[in-house]
């Protein structure tokens, strides 16, 4: 069930001219604020009507300007989670969750099951006005899921929350993705959320899609560093827990070698994603010795991208994965780094980007 969008819509400051496909999984619509992301999602949900174009979800045409098809909002069967939780203030949490069933009469009540999944079971009989931002957002997610949508649209669902509340909800989103298998279109401009959730990325600028593709490709493309931001640029690798020794340092296998991280709360055999920021990678021509850093992978330089500033972005192949490193131009010149150079990537820190535990674990350095 893929979502296919091709719409044009004149807005105040620019014209939206957006075309992309969102395959199964979590498609992240990424772009700066004001790049038209919300207008795209609203158009998909039917809250905005594009001037022209087509929106198809699975085998259902939701909008087709030429054929004059415009399925009304309530018949689109797309769950929408907004930036603000939009709780109905006159209803309890349970009544909010069961609202879709009340107005449509369809579906089986799975309130308890979903509440359990989102950790809001203890709130069911509460009124909504005392809910914290994080709780409200989880109820909003549950309410959208219980409407049994064909797809979930999430428009910066965590943007209004502080870092701690974000960390509180992210694991639930991952569980959701795993347990329900529901396709999600997720709007954000937060790199941590991208690294953690995305299985496909669509990049928007000024109402247009500039790039789209798998996170492995897009996140390690030197040209994209400018878009994701120099501090947030970095690779996301699939890892596999191979050992959990006594000394508290977990051993992870990636395609290019082994990584060692302080104990990860995941059993041997678990799959997870790790995020390695470009600014946390040091390059060395020889295998470094007498270094406290544990994580060293042999790499081959694929591309060196010089920008306007003193830094260069080096793209490297590590096994089947691509890595990025940000080093100074002076170092690059002194070390003679160019396409095809074999060297070693030393990682000052590796963050676990996706598992059931919190983000931001620092590797032994």
């Amino acid at each position, binding site marked *: 069930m893929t979502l296919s969008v091709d719409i044009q819509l004149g807005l105040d400051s620019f014209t939206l001219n957006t075309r992309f496909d969102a395959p199964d999984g979590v498609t992240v619509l990424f772009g700066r604020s004001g790049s038209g992301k919300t207008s795209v999602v609203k158009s998909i949900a039917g*809250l905005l009507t594009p001037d022209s174009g087509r929106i198809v979800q699975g085998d259902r045409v939701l909008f087709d300007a030429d054929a004059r098809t415009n399925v009304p909002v*309530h018949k689109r069967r797309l*769950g*929408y989670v907004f930036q*603000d939780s939009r709780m109905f203030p006159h*209803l309890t949490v349970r009544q909010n969750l069961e609202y879709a069933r009340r*107005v449509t009469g369809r579906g089986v009540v799975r309130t308890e099951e979903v509440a359990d999944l989102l950790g809001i079971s203890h709130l069911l009989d509460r009124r909504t006005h*005392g809910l914290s931002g994080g709780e409200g957002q989880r109820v909003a997610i549950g309410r*959208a899921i219980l*409407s049994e949508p064909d797809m979930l649209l999430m428009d910066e669902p965590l943007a209004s929350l502080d870092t701690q509340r974000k960390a509180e909800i992210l694991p639930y989103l991952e569980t959701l993705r795993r347990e329900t298998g529901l396709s999600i279109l997720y709007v954000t401009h937060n790199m941590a959320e991208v690294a953690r959730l995305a299985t496909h990325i669509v990049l928007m600028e000024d109402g247009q899609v500039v790039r789209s593709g798998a996170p492995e490709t897009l996140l390690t493309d030197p040209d994209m560093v400018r878009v994701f931001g120099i501090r947030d640029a970095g690779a996301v690798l699939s890892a596999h827990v191979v050992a959990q020794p006594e000394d508290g340092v977990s051993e992870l296998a990636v395609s290019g070698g082994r990584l060692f991280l302080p104990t990860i709360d995941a059993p041997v055999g678990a799959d997870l994603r790790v995020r390695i920021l470009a600014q946390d990678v040091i390059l060395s021509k020889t295998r470094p010795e007498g270094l406290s850093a544990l994580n060293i992978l042999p790499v081959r330089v694929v591309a060196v991208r010089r920008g306007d500033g003193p830094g260069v972005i080096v793209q490297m192949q590590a096994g089947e994965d691509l890595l990025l490193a940000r080093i100074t131009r002076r170092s690059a010149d002194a070390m003679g780094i160019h396409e095809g150079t074999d060297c070693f990537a030393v990682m000052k820190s590796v963050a676990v980007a996706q598992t059931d535990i919190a983000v931001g674990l620092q590797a032994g350095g």
Partner: protein
Amino acid sequence: MIGWLGPDEWQAVFLSLKVSFWATLGSLPFGLLCAMALARGQFAGREVLNWLVHLPLVLPPVVTGYLLLLTFGRRGPVGAFLNDTFGITLAFQWTGAALAAAIMAFPLMVRAMRLAIEAVDPKLEEAAATLGATRLRVFTTVTLPLILPGIIAGVVLAFAKAMGEFGATITFVSNIPGETRTVPSAIYAFLQVPGGEAAALRLVTVAVAIAIGALILSEWLSRRVAKRIAGK
């Protein structure tokens, strides 16, 4: 209590209650519709409608009454039509008094409801629509429960205004005992005859009691509903 008021006075009180009840009930759906249109509608004649709704508030009541007589009188364009087609006469009937009261109370009713509707966040209605609610269901399950305090306030205000309506009523339907002599008209009539002060004063007491009772009832109802809506 029954012996305290004379039969004429009772008649006036009951008539006033009947007229105000039907005036309020009859104008409620139109009031709600107008309030919705003014609060949310985007159409060409919105300003004109706003203007029309507020007209009875600024026109001298006698003028409104006379315009009603011209329009709904037996020979008036609407009055003649109603009479010929449905056999309904409004002039000099209690139904006419109800119409006059309804029109005079209309601006107050619409104002209260409009304020309540404007206070409802349209984002909630958007959310309801994405959850599968048709426009009608959105209205009955989200909008209506949230504006209920405003509706109650509008109804009570309209009822109180209808109870006190005098100028338009007496101009349109005169002051016929048992038919159009409401409490204000009765007070006016009693004051015109020597020795009528006592009866007038008794009716004044009743009018004050009903007004205060209505205010207390509306306060209590609004507070109850507001509490439920605020989710406390």
